């Protein structure tokens, strides 16, 4: 699988993501600088975690208006898989590629800890290697992960199975609506989540539960 990681000023988990993708797919991913206007020919585009533009103004807001974003929107239209993790998720929301917004954590503090994620929909390109209902461990590290959207959108997301991951067993770290941890776009090829599966891929990380997410995409594009 060919993949690309988009790097914005202030991205800081891009090296983690590049490493994870290389480890799991066996192919070195492209690193794409935000000023580019075209993407390389890839099967997966990842917007990594970090504090693009310092998270100033609103998380993801400035990055979402960067040069590379139209190319990402076009790729999404073509059905290329797009994955946004943490700040990447925030950027996708700000860019309108996913609905809703990620607001300040309900506790107002940055939270770095392991949470439990429940697979709500195991039929997506990003979760097919998990079982439906499966609960897995994954770290979160964010200050703005509190997912919010209007009631109509929420009903649609839930109704269409687009809430793929939820925080399980009272581990919601940020107060997000319906314990939402990760959502899909309508077509199912754009996925955003707050937790960091790229930091859960080796025994060193305590468990390897995050691998299946990348392996899902690998299988989907095969």
């Amino acid at each position, binding site marked *: 699988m060919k993949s690309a990681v988009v790097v914005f000023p202030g991205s800081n988990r891009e090296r983690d993501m590049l490493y994870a993708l290389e480890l799991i797919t066996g192919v070195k991913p492209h690193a794409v600088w935000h000023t580019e206007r075209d993407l390389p020919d890839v099967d997966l585009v990842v917007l990594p975690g970090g504090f693009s533009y310092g998270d100033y*103004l*609103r998380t993801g*807001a*400035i990055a979402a*208006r960067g040069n590379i974003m139209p190319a990402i929107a076009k790729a999404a239209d073509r059905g290329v898989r797009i994955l946004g993790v943490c700040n990447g998720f925030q950027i996708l929301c*700000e860019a309108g590629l996913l609905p*809703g*917004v990620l*607001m*300040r*954590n*309900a506790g*107002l503090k940055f939270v770095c800890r392991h949470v439990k994620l429940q697979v709500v929909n195991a039929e997506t390109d990003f979760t097919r290697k998990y079982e439906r209902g499966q609960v897995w461990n994954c770290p979160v590290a964010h200050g703005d992960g*509190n997912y*919010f959207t*209007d009631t109509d959108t929420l009903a649609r997301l839930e109704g269409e199975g687009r809430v793929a991951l939820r925080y399980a067993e009272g581990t919601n770290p940020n*107060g997000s609506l319906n314990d939402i941890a990760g959502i899909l776009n309508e077509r199912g090829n754009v996925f955003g989540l707050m937790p960091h599966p790229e930091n859960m891929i080796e025994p060193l990380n305590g468990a390897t539960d995050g691998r299946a997410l990348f392996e899902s995409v690998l299988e989907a594009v095969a």
Partner: protein
Amino acid sequence: MKARIKVTLKNGVLDPQGKAIEGALGALGFSGIESVRQGKFIEVELAEKDRTKAAAAIDEMCRKLLANTVIENYAVELDEK
């Protein structure tokens, strides 16, 4: 020209910071606080001297970047200076 922009959350949008401030004020012993909402206050200095043009530019800035119109409203005041 100086523009003063207030960006506020729309009604019905959850405001975790406002809620926290409300709680904190209560904890500090302030009573009778019915609600607190937190927004942003942005000041932009423009070279533009023409009021209409400046207003149009600021409005565009708000729509394109300064406010997320899905959840936020904005109000602009212009000031010669």
